[in-house]
């Protein structure tokens, strides 16, 4: 779950990291009032994604009236696919220098990585690709805090000393505290700014909370709240992963690899997937029923392939769910099921009894071929 900039900055301030002064606004009037308090300001849309500056989501407002006007323009607009509901009105801080400070997870090594770069405000992945020597990194083993001296040892490699070094290092340790305390998978301050008086402030903030750890952080609500697309929101609610694509064949697969393989085989047969849907491990009757209906909602879908292996739960329940889902469709679509594993005979019997074609083969290509045959028969 990606936090909004103002949420991240609130967390930073609670941990003692300075940020520019700012106020949240959800109406032009609030933006005007904020600018009265703050003076010359920047109006920033609060959306859970990056690149909003280039997309026109950050505006300068030198007067309260201008702030209200910019807010009126931005509120309700759609930027990078998100309808703007919230703005952060922030004092215009003159940054003498922009730095990058971030923490992410090095998956292969299973450790957090602290990254610092004296050039901030840019996409760090690009900087790292072009000039890797400018991005200073250190691994932080799990289960302990980051000590300030460790951060200093990293940051001094970029040529900082004295009070600036100490300030940045302190912010780094606090950012790591946030990283651990809130189960973050990404914590970035980009840019981290140095003001004319030497103070170091977090001018922006990106924090992404591990969805699997949201149970420990009820203050953030469900990450489903952020999802605007109704199909994606429903998928979240069902508990499956749904990626909308632009083809004509719906896919339901019990596993990401199996689902991707099904996509690959569909394309090989000259068709294109309408979606990727991955059920996760614990398939229930209800989950399957809703998954079938979700996939069928895509306007281009002409047929559905259900590719299941029994695992955590009995496969019969999954088969019953498919039957429920198919029978509740407003109009009958071609559906082909491949369902193997524990209880495969019983599951296949349930499907056959409902008139749903079952491919009793380990080869997904056979299921794809069967669906294509049906589609072509139908269109012929």
């Amino acid at each position: 779950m990606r936090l909004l900039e103002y949420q991240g900055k609130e967390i930073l301030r609670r941990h003692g990291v300075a940020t520019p002064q700012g106020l949240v606004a959800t109406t032009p009037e609030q933006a005007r009032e904020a600018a009265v308090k703050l003076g010359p300001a920047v109006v920033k849309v609060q959306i859970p994604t990056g690149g909003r500056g280039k997309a026109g989501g950050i505006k300068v407002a030198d007067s309260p009236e201008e702030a209200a006007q910019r807010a009126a323009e931005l509120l309700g607009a759609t930027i990078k696919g998100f309808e703007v509901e919230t703005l952060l009105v922030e004092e215009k801080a003159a940054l003498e220098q922009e730095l990058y400070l971030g923490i992410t997870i090095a998956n292969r090594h299973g450790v957090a990585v602290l990254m610092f770069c004296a050039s901030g405000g840019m996409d760090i992945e690009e900087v790292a690709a072009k000039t890797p020597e400018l991005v200073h990194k250190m691994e932080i083993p799990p289960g302990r805090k980051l000590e300030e001296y460790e951060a200093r040892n990293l940051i001094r490699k970029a040529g900082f000393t004295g009070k600036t070094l100490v300030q940045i290092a302190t912010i780094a340790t606090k950012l790591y505290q946030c990283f651990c305390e809130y189960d973050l998978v990404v914590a970035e301050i980009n840019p981290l700014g140095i003001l004319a008086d030497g103070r170091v402030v977090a001018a922006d903030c990106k924090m992404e909370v591990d969805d699997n750890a949201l149970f420990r952080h009820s203050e953030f609500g469900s990450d489903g709240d952020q999802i605007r697309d109704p199909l994606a929101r429903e998928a979240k609610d069902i508990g499956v992963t749904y990626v909308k694509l632009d083809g004509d064949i719906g896919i339901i697969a019990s596993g990401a690899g199996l689902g991707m393989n099904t996509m690959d085989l569909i394309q090989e047969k000259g068709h294109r997937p309408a979606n990727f849907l991955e059920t996760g491990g614990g398939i229930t009757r209800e989950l399957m029923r809703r998954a079938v209906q979700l996939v069928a909602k895509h306007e281009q879908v002409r047929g559905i392939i259900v590719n299941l292996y029994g695992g955590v739960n009995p496969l019969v329940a999954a088969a019953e769910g498919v039957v429920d889902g198919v029978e509740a469709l407003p109009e009958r679509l071609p559906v082909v099921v491949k369902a193997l594993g524990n209880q495969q005979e019983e599951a296949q019997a349930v499907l056959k009894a409902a008139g749903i074609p079952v491919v009793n083969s380990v080869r997904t290509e056979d299921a794809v071929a069967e669906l294509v045959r049906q589609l072509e028969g139908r269109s012929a």
Partner: protein
Amino acid sequence: MSILLTKDTRAIVQGATGRIGQVQTRWMLEYGTKIVAGVTPGQGGSTVHGVPVYDNVAEAVEKEGANATVLFVPARFAKSAVLESIDAGLKLIVAVPEHIPVHDSMELRAAARAKGTWLIGPNTPGIISPGIGKLGIMPGNMFQPGRIGVISRSGTLAYEVAGYINDAGFGESTLVGIGGDPVIGPDIPDILAEFEKDPETDAVVLVGEIGGSAEEEAAGYIAQMKKPVVAYIAGRTAPPGRRMGHAGASIRAGQGTVADKSRALSEAGALVAQAIADIPRLLESKLK
């Protein structure tokens, strides 16, 4: 023979008394797996399908000589359960649960490595040595005893691969689902090394996925192996930047594509299958 899960494996089931734990315990027993105890704190003294349940892993080790475990506990309790088994000296831990917080997985990976414990997963279907036993959720009927080792990041896709291997008359020595999460216990080379030294494994099939760099990093080890490795990477047609599946397979900033991984593996001497259907032919080219 087989790797990791062998005839000497005496396993416990952590969370055996739960709904899923009970079903899976039965299926593992039915497959012939030596399940010697269940462990659920607070349920000590009960039984599951005739298997005694203890409050603590240490007690199951003392009384039943357990040396491995498979977990069916809710994700939020998984960290504590795995730490308990590491501390109790178990040498093989199969962490089935998905949705374990990644900060927990980081700690578990570090703790297991510090103690020299095999941590398989999290978010793994588990490990099966056909004819000997299985620790995990894979359906036993999908596998046959044989001499091909299988390593898979993907869960169910590995079953499909096993089907092709079986149809071609090979069968599997051991199939290891290393786990689909971003942070997992095993590194692929560690498992390749086990297959390399297993006298009853003739070749290894590696089933990868787009995203990350695990396959690329494995290439270095594959280059020095004597046994043939056949690799298949799923996700050829996945759109870049979209997260394919709960565990986060995605192509990021142009890295981790099927092409990248295939190139690295080919250069290391692995035979790269363009489709799963090609795997048997590639195995035959080396073994027959």
